[in-house]
């Protein structure tokens, strides 16, 4: 392993605690990742030393705070390999990023009857915003089906495309199944049809290197709190020309050039899409999270997490009656499963009692649960601070619970 596991454990004091007298094992990373001390301190340090409302201030603290905030924009652009810093819009989370595009892209470019494609495995945050636009604007929503393994049906996708298809909005990695979608391929197919593409990277940026120029996606979104950063932070990457053409989303301070009751002109990118005082302390924390990840190295993280994930699935499968939901060829870090005759809620409740935090239920992806005709799953999701030892305890925990229900 290329990184210092002991040091990493020290960066996350939350992991070193007992739950009902059992050592905590945190396998709910896909819901939110834990936050290293470096991030907690970067954010606290804002409030302790230079907190001040950013932009337009002439005094020293305000300049310092503005520079720290804008510097995170640069580091985020670099993290995604965006061409321009101003293609990075800060939001409060992936959900808001998608809502922003849903409102501004659809209202700028789509007419009644135009079509948007999503998939059957999307998170509610990449379904409902489009459903709302369907209602408000009369656009149509098409759905790419998923096979038994939890993989997209690419042929079906190609058949859904029409001259009216203006956008494909699709997840990079499924939060419920762990499937890594072949997004480069999907983007190419979509672009050949003149269709723009939004990638929901909420479950991707923390696991694999993303290069928006190489992918050539039009929009890419993620949440800070799943990338070891603070809650209330999110990112929207958008291509310059699209963002420039799009009407603004929210109105307020920051996003204007001049305001009068007769005529208001909007600010340039990125400010046009950042109405109101941003969560600058949170964003500065997100910057520290990106630095933290870069220091460990995303490649190292990917390799280690893949190892964990493979190990977990192989060990789980030794339990009779356990079946893994989502068996795509390309998967990462998320393992959803069910044990015969045990309701996922019961499994989650009992694992909690032995210190193991997993998520249960539909994972905000009801359509794919309905498709698989299951009420939900038990989901264990891993991060680089987890270990094989923890997986061993987890697997024996699942066995124990199974016995109790026998």
């Amino acid at each position: 392993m290329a990184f210092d596991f002991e040091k990493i454990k020290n960066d996350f004091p939350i992991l070193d605690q007992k739950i009902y007298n059992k050592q905590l094992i945190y396998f709910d990373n896909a819901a939110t990742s834990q936050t290293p001390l470096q991030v907690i301190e970067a954010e606290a340090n804002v409030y302790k030393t230079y907190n001040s409302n950013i932009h337009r201030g002439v005094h020293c603290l305000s300049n310092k705070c503005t520079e720290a905030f804008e510097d995170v924009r640069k580091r985020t652009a670099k993290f995604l390999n965006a061409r321009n810093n101003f293609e990075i819009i800060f939001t409060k989370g992936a959900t808001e990023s998608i809502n922003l595009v849903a409102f501004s892209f659809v209202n700028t470019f789509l007419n009644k009857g135009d079509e948007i494609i999503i998939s059957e495995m999307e998170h509610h945050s990449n379904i409902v915003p489009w459903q709302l636009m369907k209602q408000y604007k009369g656009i149509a929503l098409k759905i790419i089906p998923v096979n038994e393994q939890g993989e997209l049906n690419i042929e079906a996708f190609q058949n859904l495309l029409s001259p009216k298809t203006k956008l494909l909005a699709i997840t990079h990695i499924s939060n419920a199944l762990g499937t890594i979608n072949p997004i480069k391929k999907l983007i190419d197919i979509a672009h050949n049809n003149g269709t723009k593409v939004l990638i929901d990277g909420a479950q991707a940026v923390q696991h694999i290197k993303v290069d928006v120029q190489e992918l050539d996606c039009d929009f890419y979104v993620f949440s800070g709190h799943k990338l070891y950063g603070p809650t209330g932070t999110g990112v929207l990457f958008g291509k310059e020309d699209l963002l420039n053409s799009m009407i603004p989303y929210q109105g307020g301070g920051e996003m204007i050039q001049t305001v009068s009751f007769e005529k208001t002109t909007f600010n340039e990118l990125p400010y046009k899409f950042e109405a109101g005082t941003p969560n600058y302390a949170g964003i500065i924390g997100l910057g520290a999270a990106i630095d933290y990840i870069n220091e460990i190295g995303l490649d190292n993280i990917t390799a280690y997490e893949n190892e964990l994930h493979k190990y977990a699935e192989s060990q789980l499968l030794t339990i009779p009656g356990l079946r893994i939901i989502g068996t795509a060829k390309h998967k990462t870090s998320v393992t959803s499963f069910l044990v015969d005759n045990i309701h996922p809620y019961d499994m989650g409740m009992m694992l909690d009692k032995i210190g193991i935090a997993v998520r249960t239920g539909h994972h905000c992806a009801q359509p794919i649960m309905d498709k698989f005709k299951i009420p939900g799953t038990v989901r264990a999701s891993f991060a680089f601070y987890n270990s094989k030892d923890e997986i061993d305890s987890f697997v024996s925990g699942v066995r124990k619970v199974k016995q109790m229900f026998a």
Partner: protein
Amino acid sequence: MEINDIQEDIIEEFSGFDDWMDKYSYLIELGNDLDGFDEKNRLDQNLIEGCQSKVWLNAELTNGKVIFTADSDAIIVKGIVALLVRVWSNHTPQEILDNDLYFIDRIGLKDHLTPTRSNGLVSMVKQMKLYALAFSAKN
């Protein structure tokens, strides 16, 4: 038996468990043993859909007493459902309305009855009181 006597009985029963596993094993047992939910009552109108698990609740007034029958798809929830039915079923609407449910706290299962749990139990308790109210209004 008075409602509060039943509550005391349950508290007594649970006082013997010193760890979580024993308590939950007992809940699972209670869940497994709960029957009497008539399939003809498995109707949408009797369904309380929590985000995590489902609860079915049926209520009838027989000889001035409310008879609750209930079910859940999750066994631990069903165990708690069994306790709730045991406490309130077979009492008059007024007795139910006047009663204060305290056993849940005392046996350390409060967690399961917080609004944010969305396992259907909070709604079930509300619904039981509403039935009692409806039946008492009818009387």
